[in-house]
C-alpha cells in the first residue's frame, strides 16, 4: 500500500530545500536521489558502517537510520557542504596530508564523524578518537592514518 507523500523543508548545506516525500524515504536516499548529493554513501543495511554519516542540527547521525520526514525543519550538512568554498575543512585537508583514505568510500562518513568529534572535543587523545570512530568502518586503511589525520586536524583547529 502506497502512502501519501508529505511535504518537508530541510536546510541542506545552508540551502532551503522543499520536497514532497514518501514517509519511508530515508534521509540518505533523500540526499542522494532527490538532491543529487551522492557524496553520502550507503555501506550497510544494519546501521553499522557509518558511510552515510551527516550532521543533523549539528550532530553526526547515520542518515540511513533517519527518515527524511524526521528531518523536516532541520539543518543538514553533508560532505559536500563541509568545505568553505575552495578551502577544505581542516579534517578534509588532514585526511589528504596524512593519507587517511584509500578507496574513499567510507571517507565522507569518517570526515563527518571526525568533524563532529572535534567540535565537541577539541583535544581528543587516540583512545577518544578511536571511541568516536566505533560507528565508522573502513576496510582499506587499517584506521592508522585516519586516527593520525584526526589528531593533526585537531591540532590545526585549536
Amino acid at each position, binding site marked *: 500500500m*502506497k502512502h501519501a507523500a508529505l511535504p518537508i523543508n530541510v536546510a541542506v548545506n545552508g540551502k532551503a530545500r522543499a520536497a514532497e516525500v*514518501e514517509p*519511508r524515504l530515508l534521509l540518505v536516499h533523500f540526499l*542522494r536521489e532527490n538532491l*543529487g*548529493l*551522492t*557524496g*553520502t*554513501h*550507503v*555501506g*550497510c*543495511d*544494519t546501521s*553499522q*558502517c557509518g*558511510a552515510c554519516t551527516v550532521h543533523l542540527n549539528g550532530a553526526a547521525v547515520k542518515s540511513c537510520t533517519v527518515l527524511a520526514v524526521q528531518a523536516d525543519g532541520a539543518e543538514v550538512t*553533508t*560532505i*559536500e557542504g*563541509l*568545505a568553505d568554498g575552495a578551502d*577544505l575543512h581542516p579534517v*578534509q585537508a588532514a*585526511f*589528504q*596530508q596524512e*593519507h587517511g*583514505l*584509500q*578507496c*574513499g*568510500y*567510507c*571517507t*565522507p562518513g569518517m*570526515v563527518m564523524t571526525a568533524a563532529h568529534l572535534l567540535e565537541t572535543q577539541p583535544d581528543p587523545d587516540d*583512545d577518544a*578518537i*578511536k*571511541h568516536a*570512530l*566505533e560507528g*565508522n*568502518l*573502513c*576496510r*582499506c*586503511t*587499517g*584506521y*592508522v*592514518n*585516519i*586516527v593520525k589525520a584526526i589528531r593533526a586536524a585537531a591540532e590545526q583547529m585549536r
Partner: protein
Amino acid sequence: MSTEQNNPDSLIGASIRRVEDPPLLTGQGCYVDDVKLPGILHVAIHRSTHPHARIVSIDTAEAAAMPGVVCVLTGDDTGDLALRAPMLTPDMNMPEHPVLARGSVHAVGAPIAAVVAESRALAEDAAAVIGVEYDPLPVVTDAEAALEDGSPLAHEELGTNHCYTMKKENGDVDKAFAEADHICRLHMKSPRLVAMSMEARGVLAYPDPIRNELTVWMSTQGPHRSRADLANSLGFPENRIHVIAPNVGGGFGSKGCVYREDVLVCHVAQKLNRPVKWMATRSEDFLTTCQGRDQAMTSELALSKDGRMLGLKVRVVANLGAYLHSATAGPPQRMLVMAPGCYQIQDVRVEIVSAFTNTVPTGPYRGAGRPESVLNIERLADKAARDLGMDTLEIRRKNYIQPDQFPYRTGVNVVYDSGDYEKSLDEALRLSDYDRLIRMRDEARERGELVGVGVSTFVEPSGGAGFESGAVRVDRTGAVTVLTGSSSHGQGHETVWAQVAADLLKVPMESVVVRHGDTIAIQQGTGTFGSRSAVMGGGALATAAERLVAKAKAIAGNLMEASPDDVVQVEGGFAVAGVPERNVTWRQVAGAAHAKGTPAGMDPGLHEIAFFDPNREAWGFGAHVALVRIDADTGELTIEKLVLVDDIGVVLNPMIVEAQVHGGLAQGLGEALCEQMVFDEEGQPRTGTLMDYAVPRASTMPPLILGETETLNPFNPLGVKGVGEAGTNGAPPAVANAVMDALSPLGIDHIDMPYTAPKLWRAIKEARKG
C-alpha cells in the same frame, strides 16, 4: 619505515600526497550508484532461503501486478544465461551456474527471481511477495565432510562433491620421511572470511540498440576481463561492450570476477532497451560475493634431530562453496607454489583437493591462498621447533634459503628471484627489541600470566596472472597521459604512475595525467589484484616510458641535428650531451612528432604501449613479530606489540606502501582476532550481517612498528615487488605463533584462528581441566 624520499631528486621513492583525494574528500567521487542516467530501472532479487532444495514452484503473479513493476524474471526467462569458469584440469567437475535458478538452488542467497521496477523501493516491495515452494534436500557445508563417502551432495546432478585435484611432487619425499628423526604433524583450518569492501557490488547497464552497443558501469577490479566475461556469457561482441570501472569502493579480490547479477542486469537492459541498475545490499553482499580462505591443511614436516627440514607433505582441502566463479578455484593452488615458504626443502609433495558445499562461493580475498600457505609452513616451523626443543628462530635460520642461492629453484619447482631472509628477520628482531620481549614474557610467565611472542618469516609472491598493459602518450602540447590497465580502486595509481612517468620522462608530475578503468580509453588490461600493480602495471609503464624516451631522443636528435646517441635527458626535455645549451623541450619534441618532425623512416606520434609479462612472479618477503597477552579469566587477546618488516624491493611511494601494509594488516588481524563466516549445520549463515560478522574497528588496531629492508627485484624494470598483501600474509601467523607460545605452558599446541575470547577461554579451561 621512513616516509621521506630516499633520493631527494627523484620522484620515485617520494611520499607524494595523492592526487585522487580532493574529489573523494569533498563528496565528488563517482561510484556506480552515483552515476546518473535518465530512466534507470532497478532490479531487486528474490533469493533462496534454503541452502539446498528443488524448487517446486515460483509464484510471481502478485509481484508482477504491483505498482511500478516492469517485469519479473525467473530461470525460465533467462534460460541458458550463465557464468562459465575455466577448466583447470581435464576432469574438473563444474556445476551449472545459471544467472537465475533453474529447478534447484544450492546455497542460501542463490537468485531465484528478479524484479525490474521503476524504483529500488518498488522492486524490493515486489521481490518480498514472490512465493517459492521448496523441496529441501540434504546439505553439506564443510569441505572435509563433503569428501567423505556418503556425504550429502551439494549438487545432486554432479554425483560428487569433488571439483578438482592437483598434485605436485619433487625429489624423493618418501625417502626423506623414512630417514627423518622426527615428523611434525599439524592439521589446520583457515577461517572463511568476507571481503566486505565498503562499497558492495553494483552494476549499471546502458544499452544502445541503434548502435548495437552496451555500456556497463561496474564496481570491478578489472574492467577488461569483466568485458570479456560479459561478452562470453551474453554472447554479445566484446568490442561492442564498454565497461567502465568508476570510483570503486574497495575489492580485495572479491571484485575480480563477473557475477550473475552483472550478466543478468546487462541482459535485462538489452531486453528492455532501458538502463538497468542493481546494487547489492550489504546482506546480499554477505550471501553472494566470493568469500575467502576456508581451507583445511594437513601437513607433515620431516626433520633431522638437529632441526633440518628434510621433507614436506601438504594436503589442502579447499571449500569452493556452491558455485564456480572464474577465480573460485584459484586460491588453493597457491600452496602448489608456496608450500616450502622461505626454507630449503627440496623433497615436497603437495596435493590440493577442492570440494563443493552448500555455502557461498569462495574465491580470491586479499592474500588469496598466500595467507593459508604462510600460516601452514610458519605454524609447522614453530611446532617443529617445540617438538625438538629448539629455539623457533634457530630452526628458521638453519633452514633459510641463503642470499647467494638466488635465483633459487624451490622444492615445488618455482624460482624465487631474490631474498635475504635473515636480514629481514634480524631487522624485525632489532625493531621489536626481541630479547627484551622474551625476558618480559618469561617474567610474566613466572607470574602465571599468559604472554607469548611469535615470529613469522614469509615469502610473498606478487604480480602473477598474465600480463599488464601500460602506455605513455605525449600530445601536441607536450601534455603527458599514462594509460594503465591496472584499474585502481584505492591503491593510488593516479599518483604513483604519475610519479613514475614524471621521473622517467623528467617532466613535472603535474603535467602527467593517469587514465584507467575504462575499456575504450585503455588499450587492454588485466586489473588490480594479487599485489600485482607495482610489479606488472609499473613494469608495463616503465617499459612503455623507456620506448617513448628512446623515440623522443631520436626526434630530439633530429631537431638538434645531433645523433640520437648524443642526446641526453634533461629536466623538461633533451639536450646534446656535454652541450646543455643545445636543448629542446618535450613540447618541441611532441610538436615535431605530430608535424612531420620525426626522422626519416620513423612513424609520427609519441605514444608507446607495452604489454608486460616477465613470466615470473616477484618474491617479496618479510618478518613479523608479535607480542600477545591473554586474559585467562575472559579469554581476551591483546596484541601488545606488532613489528612488521617487509622487503618489497624499490619503494615507489613510501606513504602509500606503508598504508598498504596498514590495510593488509587490519584484514590479517581481522582473520586472527574476530572474523569468521559461519554456517550452521543446516547450511544457514549465522554471520550474514555486520551485526554478527565482526570486522576490525579503529580500536582493534594494536601499536605498530613498521620497518623495511630493500632487496631489488632483478627481473623488473623498476626493481619492485608487490606489497598489497604483506600485512595479510605475515601478521596472522605471527599472532598465531605468539598465541600458541602464550598457551604452551598449558600444553596447548594448536588452535585455529580467529582467536575470539570465548574460543580461547574454552581452550584454556579445558587444558587446565587436563
